[in-house]
């Protein structure tokens, strides 16, 4: 029982139950850190037993029983927690899904971003410290330290275990969405295509967005982020060759895209738009949807994309958005106009490899081959992603 499929099934079952268990135990015991330790123990035990014993028919009950038994052992000194645990039974009546409180606590703005991400993965998605370390290519001790510090801050600084009040909700939700989006970016957009053996954090990002979408169905930005993630993933298979080389959007085999998933995600965007509260995630999802719906690169509705990027830059101005907008501008108004737009971003983006790479494409389009090659070379020097490096190398030697 060690195939990729069973590993994925194991990950899915743990993810489905770990967060719920953590949420219930925090409520029950009243101490975030203690409850989290028990859940982590239970997950470690599951990862040890399930691969050869098989996944039990009631995984949540199994995890709970282990967590409870460990808790009763470990909490000898904490009579108060122990008593609460001793009296508890699983499942404690119709369980309300408490994971929202858990997510808001893990993504509290008083915690550093790296800790928010590690804590969310561990507490809400049930990853072990070792799995997180492997996924981010950082030492396990670093992850352990981040989590220990974050948990200590939660209890010592009095970070509450609660859903923020209505007047704080928008700001706090945007913090949560940033964490999920960063996680997805890290896992998906900067992936190298050759990580079949490691855990796919994009699964976890989609899972978190799905949980948020279920628990906050009336927040259009949540739906927007969920649609954005699903649209990217629906096309993931076409992004790399078997050898792990990047295939750029114009060259992708669109028949590989999951049309069913694209249609569903588009419906999600429409539902979000119905709330008439546009936001950056909805707009980004809409842009990706325009690409996803185009039967070919030539048939892309660039005017629509240009409008969406203009709106996005109005809502959340950023030089990177302006760079993307310039790419759309190329197909609407020509490469000369796009190039002057790109050149005007030099001050803020000269350290960004995609600025140079975009410039290179526009220069090449203008017949300025030598400058184009120089720009590609600068882009190459600025990226560490092997797939991107290989693409740029090809361009430099061929074009």
């Amino acid at each position, binding site marked *: 029982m060690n195939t990729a499929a069973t590993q994925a099934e194991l990950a899915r079952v743990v993810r489905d139950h770990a967060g719920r268990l953590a949420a219930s135990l925090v409520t029950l015991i009243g101490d975030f850190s203690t409850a989290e330790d028990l859940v982590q123990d239970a997950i470690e035990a599951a990862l040890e037993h399930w691969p050869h014993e098989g996944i039990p028919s009631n995984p949540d009950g199994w995890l709970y029983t282990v967590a409870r038994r460990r808790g009763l052992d470990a909490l000898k000194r904490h009579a108060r927690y122990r008593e609460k645990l001793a009296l508890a039974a699983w499942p404690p009546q119709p369980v309300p899904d408490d994971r929202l409180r858990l997510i808001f606590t893990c993504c*509290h703005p008083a915690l550093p971003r790296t800790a928010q991400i590690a804590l969310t993965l561990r507490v809400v998605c049930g990853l072990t410290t070792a799995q997180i370390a492997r996924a981010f290519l950082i030492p396990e001790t670093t992850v352990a330290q981040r989590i220990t510090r974050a948990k200590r801050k939660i209890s010592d*600084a*009095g*970070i*509450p275990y609660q859903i923020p009040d209505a007047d704080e909700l928008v700001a706090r939700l945007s913090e949560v969405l940033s964490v999920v989006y960063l996680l997805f970016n890290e896992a998906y957009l900067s992936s190298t295509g050759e990580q079949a053996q490691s855990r796919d954090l994009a699964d976890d990002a989609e899972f978190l967005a799905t949980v948020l979408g279920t628990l906050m169905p009336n927040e259009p930005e949540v739906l927007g982020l969920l649609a954005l993630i699903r649209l990217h993933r629906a096309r993931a298979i076409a992004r790399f060759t078997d050898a792990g080389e990047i295939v750029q959007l114009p060259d992708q085999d669109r028949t590989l895209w999951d049309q069913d998933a694209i249609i569903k995600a588009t419906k999600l965007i429409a539902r979000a738009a119905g709330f008439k509260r546009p936001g950056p995630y909805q707009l980004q999802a809409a842009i990706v949807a325009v690409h996803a719906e185009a039967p070919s690169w030539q048939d892309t509705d660039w005017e629509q994309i240009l409008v969406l990027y203009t709106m996005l830059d109005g809502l959340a101005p950023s030089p990177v958005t302006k760079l993307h907008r310039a790419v759309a501008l190329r197909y609407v108004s020509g490469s000369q106009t796009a190039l002057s737009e790109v050149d005007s971003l030099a001050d803020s983006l000269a350290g960004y490899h995609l600025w140079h790479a975009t410039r290179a494409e526009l220069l090449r389009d203008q017949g300025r081959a030598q400058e184009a090659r120089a720009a590609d070379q600068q882009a190459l020097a600025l990226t560490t992603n092997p797939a991107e490096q290989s693409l740029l190398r090809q361009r430099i030697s061929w074009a």
Partner: protein
Amino acid sequence: MKYVLMFVDTEQFAADLAAMDEGERERAYGRVLQWFTDNADKITSHTHLMPPHTATTVRMEGGEPLVTDGPFVEGKEVISGFAEIDVANLDEALRLVKSWPACPLVEIRPITA
């Protein structure tokens, strides 16, 4: 939970305050007084400090105590006052601090229980 709010002045803030005319400054002080009045149920005590030029620091790190002029951190940001508050949790402390009408930096620290 009890927290201490440490109010921190910056050079820019001091300059802005100095540049105000009498009336403006009165109104600025008035807003601070109003804030303390509005939140009197959460604030257990508060103190405003004399400016940093009045500070004296004693270092007792090696053998003889060393007395020096000035605050222990020389910098552009100086602590200008304290308030002790008693609220349910960090979110409540944050809510309170976000309505603070004066200096641009506030550090929130829980008090050892």
